[in-house]
């Protein structure tokens, strides 16, 4: 059951992971991208933090929509619309269901639709898809997420900037997959699957 409190905790944890790993994420984005993913996510999460600070006792829909709008209007690049769309989809549907498996599944569909990528394209989807599958069987764990992110190393990028490298993208982690790893880890730490 996702609640407003969990989202609030989740975002705080995610923000602190992004702060810690900002340089690392940008570094991952350098050989196969344009070196800004850490900065982009940091700017976005600062925006999320600022926006959430202004809310008092928000309901689930409000908090999810606030996160979405902050990400959409602060991140830019590829990650902004994708993460933004994910939270927007959750906000849209959270009155019907609060089950993580269902909400994350809808979010993943939003990401796929927005970016036109699919599993195996070496994007954040390669963390989101296995994470959603694990949620559906109640088996999401930090290990699974880490493994999914690590698995992007062997893939050839088909979408995003890394795709310009073709075969040469092999051997590098996808930065968006790693930031998504942090997102799911934070979700678990925030008690999202208890």
């Amino acid at each position, binding site marked *: 059951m996702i609640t407003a409190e969990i989202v609030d905790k989740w975002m705080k944890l995610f923000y602190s992971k992004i702060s810690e790993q900002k340089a690392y994420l*940008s570094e991952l984005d*350098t050989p196969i991208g*344009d*070196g*800004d993913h850490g*900065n*982009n996510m940091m*700017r976005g999460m600062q925006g999320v933090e600022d926006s959430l600070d202004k809310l008092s006792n928000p309901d689930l829909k409000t908090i999810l929509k606030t996160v979405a709008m902050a990400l*959409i*209007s*602060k*991140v*830019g*690049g*590829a*990650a*902004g*619309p*994708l993460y*933004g*769309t994910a939270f927007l989809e959750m906000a849209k549907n959270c009155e019907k269901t609060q089950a993580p498996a269902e909400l994350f599944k809808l979010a993943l569909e939003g990401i796929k639709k*927005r*970016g036109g990528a699919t599993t195996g394209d070496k994007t954040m989807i390669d963390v989101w898809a296995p994470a959603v599958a694990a949620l559906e069987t109640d088996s999401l764990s930090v290990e699974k997420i880490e493994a999914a992110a690590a698995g992007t190393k062997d893939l050839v990028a*088909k*979408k*995003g*900037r890394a*795709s*310009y*490298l*073709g075969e*040469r993208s092999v051997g590098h982690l996808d930065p968006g997959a790693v930031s998504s790893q942090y997102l799911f880890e934070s979700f678990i730490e925030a008690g999202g699957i208890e």
Partner: protein
Amino acid sequence: MKKIINSPGDVVPEMIDGLVRAYPQYVERIPGTEAVVRSNKSSMDGKVGIVSGGGSGHEPAHPGFVGKGMLSAAVAGQVFTSPTPDQIYEAIKAVNTGRGVFLVIKNYSGDVMNFDMASDMAELDDIPVKSIIVDDDIAVENSLYTQGRRGVAGTVLMHKLVGAAADQGASLEEIEELANKALPHISTIAVALSAATVPEVGKPGFELADDEIEYGVGIHSEPGYRREKIKTSHELAEELVSKIDRELKLDATHRYAILVNGMGATPLMEQYVFSHDLLDELATRKIKPAFMKVGNYMTSIDMAGISLTIFDLIDEKWLDYLNYPVETIAW
């Protein structure tokens, strides 16, 4: 990193501020955004609005091309990062005078998605929006299954084309048709001598040895297709022209427009020397350009290098559009 800046995080707002205050006769800031719009508002009356933009770091693109006869507004994202949909949406609203708005988007996932979201927002306001996704960089093989090719310096020629058509009263549909028809005839290829340093990153996007160059790099330090020892200008011209020839099938009976584009740190001295070799190389193919420009138009911050764009002017009118007078900072 040695740059004339204050805090790396403030580069974009300060740059836009410097630009609009230096050139109030051409552009002004759309309040609350990093987007600029024409100061000459009446020049937009009854015309389709043209909006472009993208990450910053490509100056004078895109704000330098805002003005009568070219762009109506330009949106600046963070350095090498697509602008956000809310800002693009503000620009669309600012230039819509009832005949709709046309978006010139460079083919990057981020740009495409953010401009898409902005179009969705504008459609809720019943503003008709159409767009072209420019993918002129032939360094990357094209494929339906990937992101496809990048949008680079040829985008500036697209701005010029649709800007002139809009100024002459073309409808949104006519502009879309023009853009779609012209796009496959614009090809660009670049060579880098050094990479750009994003202020917030603080070091170059890639390293090239003192005697190395890289063909086919993008405008965000995206890697190219081959690394080699430094070549003469003559050999570079040969390589770049032959790459484009394979794509456009250069034909002595056609008319061509040429854009030799400096990447930011390459002086005009080198750009003109390269132009000399380029024109010789084209002359061996019996081609003499009908239109040519040399200079910094779509840069990559402080990257050293050059790109070559060739535009096959298969339609009579396109040359007129290129020559059509504009009132901008940088065309």
